[in-house]
């Protein structure tokens, strides 16, 4: 804990972050008080870094050069020294700071190695990428400060205190026509009518008449006949449906009685019937 570079005072840091355009309102939250003891100050600062990259950015700023020309080696040394001091003071250090310290130590040793022993990616590339990241964070830090220092509505400029307000009065044009009106009435009346169940009379072919009909027709020929040819030709479609169902059951019944045989060539294909020749 000796000197400015290793122990940056919080107040100093704040003014650097904000640059020229600082105004009182733009101060960051929770910056350490300058009256705090040395170890407190360090602790509070560690709490206030927004991660290892943030700490690196601040250390880099301390080199007082363009972020593009910072010395990565010096930065690595400063960072490691900083973390070591925090450790010496037995301060709790978040894992990501320690990970960064370890990675930086590795980077430093790689940078110091002779070139031909280097791996891919090269330490130069890693260092350059780190520098680019720091520069990007620095750019956004500055941009944020400049943004907050602008003439802000409600702080520097003010909107009208008591605007009358613009009103759009929506007038509903309701739509409904004659048909909808009388239809609705009809529906209400229907809904409220006493419910009467009427069993609609439907044309049907009973099983008995189907058996009779199918056996009669089987008697005409010895050849295979398709089930549908057993149906009445000019019937009402509803009667046809019923006839198809009862004729099918009739066919099964006749097969069971040993009077007919049934064949189906394909699944869902037409059913064929043939009379069983009397033995």
């Amino acid at each position: 804990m000796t000197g400015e570079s290793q122990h940056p005072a919080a107040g100093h840091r704040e003014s650097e972050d904000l640059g020229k355009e600082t105004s009182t309102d733009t101060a960051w939250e929770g910056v350490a008080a300058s009256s705090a003891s040395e170890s407190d100050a360090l602790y509070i600062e560690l709490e206030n870094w927004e991660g290892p990259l943030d700490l690196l950015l601040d250390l880099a700023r301390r080199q007082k050069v363009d972020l593009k020309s910072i010395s990565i080696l010096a930065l690595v040394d400063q960072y490691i020294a900083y973390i070591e001091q925090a450790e010496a003071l037995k301060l709790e250090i978040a894992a990501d700071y320690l990970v960064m310290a370890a990675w930086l130590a590795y980077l430093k040793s790689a940078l110091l190695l002779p070139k031909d022993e280097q791996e891919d990616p090269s330490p130069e590339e890693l260092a350059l990428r780190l520098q680019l990241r720091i520069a990007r964070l620095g750019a956004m830090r500055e941009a944020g400060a400049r943004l907050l220092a602008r003439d802000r509505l409600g702080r520097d400029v003010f909107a009208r205190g008591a605007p009358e307000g613009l009103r759009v009065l929506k007038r509903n044009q309701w739509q409904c026509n004659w048909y909808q009106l009388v239809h609705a009435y009809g529906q209400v009346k229907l809904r409220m009518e006493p419910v009467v169940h009427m069993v609609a009379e439907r044309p049907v072919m009973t099983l008995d008449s189907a058996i009779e009909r199918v056996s009669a027709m089987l008697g005409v020929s010895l050849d295979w006949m398709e089930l549908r040819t057993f149906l009445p030709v000019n019937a009402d479609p509803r009667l046809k449906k019923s006839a198809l169902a009862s004729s099918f059951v009739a066919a099964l019944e006749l097969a069971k009685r040993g009077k007919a045989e049934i064949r189906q060539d394909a699944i869902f294909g037409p059913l064929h019937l043939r009379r069983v020749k009397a033995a």
Partner: protein
Amino acid sequence: MSESSPDDLTRAVEACLFAAEEPLTREQISAHLGEADVKDALASLQEQYAKRGINLVERGKRWQFQTAPDLAHLLRREKDQLRRLSRAATEVLAIIAYHEPVSRAEIEAIRGVQTSGGTLDVLMEAGWVRVAGRREVPGRPVIYATTPEFLTHFGLDSRKDLPGLAELKAAGLLDPVDDAYEDLMEQKATKAEDSDAQDDSEVAEPLENRDESA
């Protein structure tokens, strides 16, 4: 305005009055501006704004900007929007038309469902239904009837023009639901092979029901 830019005090008074949430007295303005005398500034502002869309006015020793009175109508714009009457509202309207004058309780008895007050409000807003007094029974319920606008809108000379139940039936408007269902099944059977149209008609029903509850 651009020719003679106002002095700093006038500008400050202007900004102060603009940002204020309520009308300010001369003293309040002064207090904001380091006890400066703002009398002249107010007078000159009032004159500068006299012919603009905004005026500076003094009401009971308090100063404020306000929209010029002749432009007040611009601040309230009316806009028509077309809206379909909900099924519930259409039913209530129909019941009133066929049975008027009716009370809400009677409407509910005919519909078999509770009717929300909003439904009647909509019909009155549309100008088709009016309160036609109270029925002289215990509780003196409000009774509703249709308006002349109702007849005009629906192209009726009088309420007697509304078709009777027998006519509705003849026109197929009261076909029993069972039959309608049969017909639907019949259509399905013919359509089944080449289209999925039946799925649509199945979806349509719950939607209509939802309408009704709205």
